Each structure stands twice: as structure tokens, then as C-alpha cells.
């Protein structure tokens, strides 16, 4: 089984892709069959992925010696592009996580999407989404990765805009597509540079060639530029500042889509890509600093927005942006294992919380404002308690999964600072403060929605088993999923690393600090939103610091800023270009046509219809030729037909 799985890893993305094709072409009119095919394909992928993970884990293939199967895709003379499968601990872990989360989300969707007229279509898109993400994960080559990357973008577009009758959904889909496209453009430029300068996009070959960039006559400045260009792609895809604006809007899609986008597919693609190309970033400290700062800033920035949002999914969305910032920060300080560890734990608790939020919305008929919920835990115990587990995990309470990964990120950031990067302390402080805010806003939401007084106008009910079952599984992973990477037995760090595995002594002080931070955040949320039942204190605070509150509630007006920018600057630029296009580009073409027409109109008067006029021209021509031949020099005679005396 394991041998088969290792040799047939390409089946992992292919199975859901086949499910997509089967649903689209054959079983679309049969919703139940479609969803069964989709879930079955996904579950088979998961089984394969689990076997692959086991295989890679037992016969250690490290990042330096991955298992690669590749074949020639296309090429011209010396330029060849290969397509292939690359298995190493990172991709094996990702395959396992993505296929597991996707399977659970699809099971959940069978309940959540029940009765939707587009039920089959939804499952086909979800299958394709998972397939493209899995394809991205196993890519051995950056071009192949880019193709999958765009497919992921396409699927997110289709799914965010799934409710095509909603204008907001269509707008959100467009926004997601265009914002990430800005990133993709930068990334494509970066990839082109890599191909031109290093002659390959194959990950293993690049990893060998990039460290010798000086011998290839490439300056460090150019390499930094390339790294930053490549990084622009992940900025867009992983919702980093300033291209984060699409991610909170992406919740316009059905909730399982949000869960899939925010946990396992779209947004982690960016983190994964940076992880995959870390050999490039590692060569240029400048680019690493950019990554680290972008990550830390995004984490803090999104957290400050999340503390005042009212819609349950919007809070979760900003928390995703924030957590992705953590992952980028970890990459920026050079720790692949910490980043991937957080990606792993985050996938479980974020998928859990999104699905639980979906369950709540399902029960409350899409009422999303947390202030209008309350006491839900009594009516929906499974949803409520699994959500609480997710909240504990993201807040960083041991032994839940998020604690270990967040602690490791804090640890590596501190270590980075201690190694002479003075601003590393700034990064550390930002990360620690973000942790506090995270605990606060998460528990604000939990206290408001699940505890406190029940609202009499709500009549919630617990969701069916096919929706609660994935919640329970994910809650299990959110609880124990972090134990693979404790500081005492850091299997994770042994397995997934870049360069030498990281062997740090357990930093008890730091662990204590992060627990204190988390408890303080939860405590503050408790004081403000639960203890004071009427929630007066929170209101008073909001009124007292109206300006700050508004700034945060309105997401720092970034959207408005973009709005203004596109309305004024882009539109003005477009007007100039439009003018240029109409009057210059079109002018040249139309001018040529006009010239032809006018000259034709002039010449047609030579056509008198009288034979004698034509004969006259004929004789005149003859006369000219005769004169030239008789008296002209040899060149003109040559032109006239090569007659030479």
C-alpha cells in the first residue's frame, strides 16, 4: 500500500479532478450521486495521502533529498519543462492535511448545502478546488505550481461567487480574483526571471543553482528583486497586507467554501510557495526581512480589525489574515518548521471554527451578527463546545494545537532577535501583542455568541450528524494535533525543516508568557462581554474611543482607500490611455484606411470608361519606357528588365 501510494502520488490530485469531470459531464442531474462521488474521491485521496505521509515519514526523505518523479512536459532544444511529483515531509504533510480537511468539509457540505439547486455544481467545484490545491502541493516545478496556483484562484472565484444571485457575492468573487491577480503578476515576473537567469524552474535544480548565484554573475540586488517579486504572489494569495482586502469578503461564498479557502487551500498556497522557495529567500536577507515584516504587520493589523467586527465569519476571516501573518513571520525569520507547524494546526482549528460558524448560521437562518446571538451553547452543544475548543486552540491555551505552533513561532522570532537582528524584538513584540488580541477577539465572539443570555427571537437547533461529525473530528485534531511538535519531543521539527533541524531547549519562560497573554486576552473578553451582562462597559469603551473604534470597525478604510485609488487614479490613467488608444493607436489604423479610401476616390476619376484614354496612358507608358531604355543609365535599364547595351 505504502509503496503503491509513493509511486502513485499523482493519483491524489487526480481523483478529485476526476470527480469534478464525472459530476460535470455525467451526474449533474443527480445531486446525491454527485456528492457521493465527490466525497468518495476525496476520501480515497485522503487514504492515499495518509499512506504517502506514512511512507515519507518512515523512510526519511528530507527536504534536501525529496522523492521526485518527473517526466518531460514540453521543450524546445535546450529549454525543457518537466512535470512531476515531489514528495518530501513538507508536501507529504500538506497532502495529508489538505485531503483530510477537504474530505471533512465535503462531508459537512452534504448537510450544509442540502436542498441547494446548485448542489451538484457545488460539489464539482469543491472537488476541483481540492484537486488544484493538491496538485500545487505535489508540484516538482514552479511552472506546474503556477498552473495549479491559477486553478486554485479560478476555483475560489467560482466558489466565492457561488450564489450568483447575490450582488455582494459576485463583487466579492471579482475582488478576490483581481486582487490575487495583482499578486500573480508579480510572481510571474519573478518566475520569468528565475527561468531566464537560472535556466530552470525545477525546484530541486533551482535549489542547487540558486546558492551559486554569484558564479552565474547575478548580483544580490537582482536576486533580492526576484525574491520580492516571487513574494508578491503569496502576498496576494495568502491575504497579506496590503492585498488582504479580498479575504474577508471571500466569506460571501457558502460557509464550507470559506472553511476550505481559509484553512486548507487558497490562502495556505502562498505560505506553502514561500516555504517551497525558501532556498531562494534564504540567500537574500533583505527579502527575508520583507517577508518577516509583512507577516508580523499583517498579523497585528488584521487582529486590530478583528476586535471590533460584528459578523461571525468576518471575525474569523480577519483572524485568518492574522494567522497567515504569523506563518509568514515564521518563514521570514527562517523557520520552515514553525511556519508549517502553524499552518498545520491552523488548518484544523480554523476549518473547525468556520464549519461551526456555518452550523450556527444554518441554525439562525443566516443571521451573522454576534451581538444578536447569545446562549447558543445550550441549544447547540456540539457546535458550541467544538467552537470553544477551536477558540482555545487559536488563543494558545495548552495543550490545544494552536499553543504549540504559536509558541514555536514566538520562540523562533525571539531566537532570531537574539541572533543579532535588533528589529527582531519588534517582530517579537508585534507577534506577542497579536497573540493577546487574538485571544481577546476570539473569546469576545465566543462569549457573545455562545454564552450569556439567550435571545428569545432565535430558535436554534443542533445541526444533523453529517455536519457535526466533521466538527468533532476537527475538534479532535485541534486538541491533540499540536502534540507532534512539543518542545520536549519535536518530531515536527525533526521531520519538516529547512537546513539543520532546530534543536531548542524548551523555553519555559516563553511558554509561561504566551499562556499569560492568552489568559489575559480571554479574561479581558470575559470582563467586557460576559461578566457585565448588559455589555455596557464595551459600549462605553467604544464611545469613549470613538475614533479608534471607527478606524478599526471600518478596517482602517483600506477598502475606501482602494476605492478612491481606483476611482480617481486608475480611472484617470485609464482615461489618458483611452484617449491614446482612440486617437493614436486607432488613429494610425483608421488614418491608413482613410488614406487608402481618399486616394482611391481620387484615382477612380482616371477610369473614364473610354478606351482611348486608356490607350493614351498605354502609349505614354511605352514612351517613358522607351526613353528610359534609350537614354537612361544602366541602373534604370536594369530595373526596366535587365536590358543592357
Amino acid at each position: 500500500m505504502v509503496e503503491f501510494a509513493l509511486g502513485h502520488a499523482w493519483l491524489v490530485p487526480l481523483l478529485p479532478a476526476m470527480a469534478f469531470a464525472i459530476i460535470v459531464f455525467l451526474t449533474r442531474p443527480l445531486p446525491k450521486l454527485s456528492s457521493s462521488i465527490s466525497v468518495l474521491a476525496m476520501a480515497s485521496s485522503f487514504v492515499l495521502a495518509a499512506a504517502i505521509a506514512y511512507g515519507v515519514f518512515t523512510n526519511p526523505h528530507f527536504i534536501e533529498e525529496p522523492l521526485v518523479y518527473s517526466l518531460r512536459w514540453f521543450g524546445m532544444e535546450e529549454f525543457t519543462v518537466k512535470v512531476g511529483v515531489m514528495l518530501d515531509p513538507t508536501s507529504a504533510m500538506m497532502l495529508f492535511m489538505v485531503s483530510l480537511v477537504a474530505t471533512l468539509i465535503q462531508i459537512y457540505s452534504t448537510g450544509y448545502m442540502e436542498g441547494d439547486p446548485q448542489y451538484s455544481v457545488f460539489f464539482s467545484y469543491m472537488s476541483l478546488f481540492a484537486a488544484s490545491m493538491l496538485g500545487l502541493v505535489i508540484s516538482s516545478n514552479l511552472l506546474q505550481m503556477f498552473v495549479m496556483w491559477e486553478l486554485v484562484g479560478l476555483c475560489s472565484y467560482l466558489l466565492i461567487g457561488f450564489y450568483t444571485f447575490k450582488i455582494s457575492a459576485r463583487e466579492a468573487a471579482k475582488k478576490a480574483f483581481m486582487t490575487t491577480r495583482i499578486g500573480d503578476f508579480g510572481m510571474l515576473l519573478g518566475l520569468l526571471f528565475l527561468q531566464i537567469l537560472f535556466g530552470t524552474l525545477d525546484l530541486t535544480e533551482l535549489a542547487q543553482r540558486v546558492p551559486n548565484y554569484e558564479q552565474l554573475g547575478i548580483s544580490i540586488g537582482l536576486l533580492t528583486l526576484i525574491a520580492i517579486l516571487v513574494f508578491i504572489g503569496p502576498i496576494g494569495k495568502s491575504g497579506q497586507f496590503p492585498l488582504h482586502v479580498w479575504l474577508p469578503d471571500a466569506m460571501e461564498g457558502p460557509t464550507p467554501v470559506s472553511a476550505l479557502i481559509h484553512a486548507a487551500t487558497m490562502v495556505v498556497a502562498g505560505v506553502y510557495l514561500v516555504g517551497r522557495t525558501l532556498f531562494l529567500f534564504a540567500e537574500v536577507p533583505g527579502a527575508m526581512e520583507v517577508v518577516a515584516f509583512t507577516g508580523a504587520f499583517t498579523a497585528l493589523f488584521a487582529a486590530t480589525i478583528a476586535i471590533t467586527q460584528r459578523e461571525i465569519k468576518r471575525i474569523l476571516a480577519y483572524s485568518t489574515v492574522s494567522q497567515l501573518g504569523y506563518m509568514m513571520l515564521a518563514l521570514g525569520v527562517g523557520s520552515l518548521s514553525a511556519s508549517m507547524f502553524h499552518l498545520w494546526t491552523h488548518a484544523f482549528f480554523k476549518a473547525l471554527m468556520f464549519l461551526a460558524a456555518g452550523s450556527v448560521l444554518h441554525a439562525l437562518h443566516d443571521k451573522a451578527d454576534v451581538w444578536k446571538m447569545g446562549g447558543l451553547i445550550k441549544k447547540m452543544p456540539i457546535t458550541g463546545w467544538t467552537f470553544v475548543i477551536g477558540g482555545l486552540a487559536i488563543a494558545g491555551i495548552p495543550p490545544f494545537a494552536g499553543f504549540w505552533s504559536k509558541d514555536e513561532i514566538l520562540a523562533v522570532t525571539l531566537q532570531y532577535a537574539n541572533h543579532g537582528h535588533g528589529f527582531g524584538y519588534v517582530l517579537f513584540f508585534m507577534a506577542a501583542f497579536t497573540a493577546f488580541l487574538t485571544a481577546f477577539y476570539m473569546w469576545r465572539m465566543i462569549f457573545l455568541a455562545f454564552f450569556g443570555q439567550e435571545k428569545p427571537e432565535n430558535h436554534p437547533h443542533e445541526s444533523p450528524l453529517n455536519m457535526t461529525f466533521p466538527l468533532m473530528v476537527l475538534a479532535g485534531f485541534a486538541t491533540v494535533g499540536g502534540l507532534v511538535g512539543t518542545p520536549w519531543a519535536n518530531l515536527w521539527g525533526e521531520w519538516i525543516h529547512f537546513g539543520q533541524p532546530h534543536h531548542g531547549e524548551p523555553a519555559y519562560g516563553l511558554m509561561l508568557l504566551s499562556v499569560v497573554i492568552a489568559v489575559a486576552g480571554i479574561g479581558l473578553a470575559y470582563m467586557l462581554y460576559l461578566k457585565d451582562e448588559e455589555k455596557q462597559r464595551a459600549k462605553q469603551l467604544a464611545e469613549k474611543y470613538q475614533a479608534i473604534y471607527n478606524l478599526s470597525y471600518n478596517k482602517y478604510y483600506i477598502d475606501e482607500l482602494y476605492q478612491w485609488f481606483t476611482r480617481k487614479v486608475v480611472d484617470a490613467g485609464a482615461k489618458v490611455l483611452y484617449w491614446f488608444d482612440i486617437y493614436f493607436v486607432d488613429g494610425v489604423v483608421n488614418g491608413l484606411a482613410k488614406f487608402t479610401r481618399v486616394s482611391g476616390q481620387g484615382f477612380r476619376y482616371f477610369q473614364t470608361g473610354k478606351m482611348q484614354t486608356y490607350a493614351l496612358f498605354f502609349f505614354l507608358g511605352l514612351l517613358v519606357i522607351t526613353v528610359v531604355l534609350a537614354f537612361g543609365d544602366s541602373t534604370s535599364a536594369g530595373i526596366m528588365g535587365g536590358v543592357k547595351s
Partner: protein
Amino acid sequence: MGTGLNPSYFIGLSAALFAIGAFGAISKKNAIAVLISIELMLSAVNINLVAINKFLTPEAFIGQIFAIFVITVAAAEVGLGLAIVIAIFRNRHSVNLDDFDLMKW
């Protein structure tokens, strides 16, 4: 060839005939006159052919044979041309070429 004749007389005659014919073909209003002018030009060519044959290759008859061909073709052509002129005359009651601008823009 003891005579004082030399080719330039023939060529001069031919050129003059040709020029007269060309002038007539272009300037005459009457279609019949134009056909006659064309005959003049053809005659000019025939004179050239025969004369040059006489001076260059007196033993062969290439020019003369060509001239016979030209006369034959010209006869046929004029027959055709006259037929067209007559057809037009029947339709329009005119042989004035200025009236025949059917192919005008």
C-alpha cells in the same frame, strides 16, 4: 543591295506611320476611323519586320512570315471590331467613341 537604301529609311517610314496611327487611334471620334488607324500602326510594324528581315537575314523569311501572321490576325481583329461597332451602332445609333463610356467609374 547596291541601292542607296539603308534601314533608317524604312524605320523612319515605319515610325512615322506608327505615330500617325497612334495619334489617330487616340484622337479620332469615329470608331471606324480608329479601326483604320490601328491598321496603320499594324502596317508600320509589318514594314519594320520585312525591312529588318531584308537587311539582317536576307536568306531567311522570318520577318515576312511574321508579317503574314500579323495581317491575318489584324484581319480577324478588324472583323471582330467592326462587328462590335455595328452592334453598338444598332443600340445607340452612334459611332462616336465619346458616347461609349459604359465602363466609367
